[in-house]
């Protein structure tokens, strides 16, 4: 639905503060609440559209599809449902794009596809993205929104952590920049691999970022964690982030930072 087709009185309720927002304005604000600043999760293709020059995105590896290496109970069905819902083959979209004219290799995960989890296809696509960035010597950018490794592919998922981390190592050794953007949520196996290895790490305000889920820690340790535990702001205070950048500024920040690294 195009912005000019949305009636002026259609409203959207903010997940953050519950305020009723005019849908058109909310969309124009990139799905950020004008009251409380809540950043709604973006599907991969909206994220890509937001970041790159109009029409500049050329998808890579769209043909890659997941298999069921373990014959894991229920995986087939969950995957198919996710595919029907998102029109994606798996939880990650990668390709070439331009940001303010500069060619980049850009990847984004889609939380709506099985929690944006990283199985073989996600890992393979990120690895190919990083390898192509190296080959073409263009900076790589990933935007994560993920619950971590995909349980249903078992060890195959765990291996994607090593695979993508190794690909980052090669890219950085070749002095090609890699910027990791963390959007809500960025946790577990993805956060503990390539997403934590950016030359620069940028988060969206309020994004949940961590390794072990707060609930698991609370149950295991029998403690109560503060409300802002593992928020982007918490991670900034603990030295894990370079910047917290609101969505509206993300694209220009990426362009400027790449310019400072490369020009």
């Amino acid at each position, binding site marked *: 639905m195009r912005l000019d087709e949305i009636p002026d009185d259609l409203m959207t309720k903010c997940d953050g503060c519950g305020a009723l927002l005019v849908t058109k304005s909310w969309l124009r604000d990139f799905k950020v609440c004008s009251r409380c600043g809540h950043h709604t999760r973006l599907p991969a293709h909206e994220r890509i559209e937001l970041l790159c020059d109009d029409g500049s995105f050329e998808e890579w590896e769209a043909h890659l599809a997941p298999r069921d290496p373990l014959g894991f109970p229920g995986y087939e069905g969950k995957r198919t449902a996710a595919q029907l819902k998102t029109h994606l083959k798996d939880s990650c979209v990668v390709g070439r794009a331009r940001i303010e004219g500069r060619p980049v290799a850009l990847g984004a995960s889609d939380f709506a596809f099985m929690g944006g989890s990283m199985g073989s*296809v996600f890992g393979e696509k990120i690895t190919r993205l990083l390898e192509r960035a190296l080959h073409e010597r263009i900076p790589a950018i990933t935007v994560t929104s993920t619950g971590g490794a995909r*349980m249903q*592919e078992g060890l195959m998922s765990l291996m994607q*952590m090593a*695979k993508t*981390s190794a690909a980052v190592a*090669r890219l950085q050794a070749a002095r090609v920049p890699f910027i990791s953007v963390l959007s809500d949520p960025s946790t577990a196996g993805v956060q503990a691999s390539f997403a934590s290895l950016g030359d620069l790490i940028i988060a969206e305000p309020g994004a949940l970022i961590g390794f072990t889920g707060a609930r698991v820690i609370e149950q295991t340790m029998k403690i109560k964690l503060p409300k802002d535990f593992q928020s982007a702001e918490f991670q900034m205070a603990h*030295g*894990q982030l370079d910047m917290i950048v609101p969505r509206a500024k993300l694209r220009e920040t990426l362009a400027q930072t790449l310019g400072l690294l490369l020009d």
Partner: protein
Amino acid sequence: MLSRWLPLEKPLVEIEEQIEELKRLAVRENMDLSDKIARLEDRKRAAMQDIFQDLTPWEKVQMARHPKRPYALDYIGALCSEWVELRGDRAYGDDRAIVAGLGRFNGRAVAIIGNQKGRDTKERQERNFGQASPEGLRKAQRVMELAARYKRPVISFVDTPGAACTPEAEERGISEAIARNQLVMSQLPVPIVIVITGEGCSGGAIALAVGDRVMMLEHSYYSVIAPEACASILYRDPTKAEDSAEALKITAQDALRMNVIEEIVPEPLGGAHRNLGRMCLTLGEALDRALSELSALPPHELVERRYRRFRCLGAIEDYPPDVAAPQDTPGE
């Protein structure tokens, strides 16, 4: 006494107790009970065969977590003629859940890193059950970089239920530490041999498991998630861990089939803890063979092959044109 043994070992332990009893009796009463004892020994052997030849995945998890299972320092003590433990990350602390140091193994100087669990309650807490905190992984990284500088190969003993699950680990960047270790290991210009000796669970395991050769002891397990945690998510019931252990394909045999490891190191009948000497003999041979082969490769070749090793892993519909598919298609 039985609490130190697994339920699956119960028949075995009962026979063993009978043998002990007969032996004591023979001495006390000065009787010849050797026939009876021999028959019990036969029964014991048969029971062992019976129990251990076909463990279920969940039983393997139990074996991997066996309270008597040998830990990194047990292997190091048995395999190395010299050992100097190195401590600290030089920035925050010394994590006792990780051991790191320099050792001499079969005449060869090596660096060793590994998880270390505790044997009694106090040591278990001190070692945080083998769950590494960021400073432990950073200690391992420091020692690996030292190894690279002085061209020592690295042996990594993996045995962990996962990385530290504490607010402090999150505050000090456990994600970053796990990620960084993988990055560093992927580029380290010396041979790296991984041995999963017990539990190889989740990010805490892969943080120490990027290497040229990955071996698993016969009754260890390797998994992206703890079976209990998987059951909580999958069946909303952590007690269904047995089913999820099955579903996750976490045995050494599964990992070998998926090309995730190169080698299964056989354990003595009854498991590593029943005969540490024999276990170390077998493991020592496997390690020596791997180190000898890998040491013949020039560093850049080693690093390139290591990259390709992990690069090939994944179950997807379409293999990349520039990467040869492994001989056995992974995951089938």
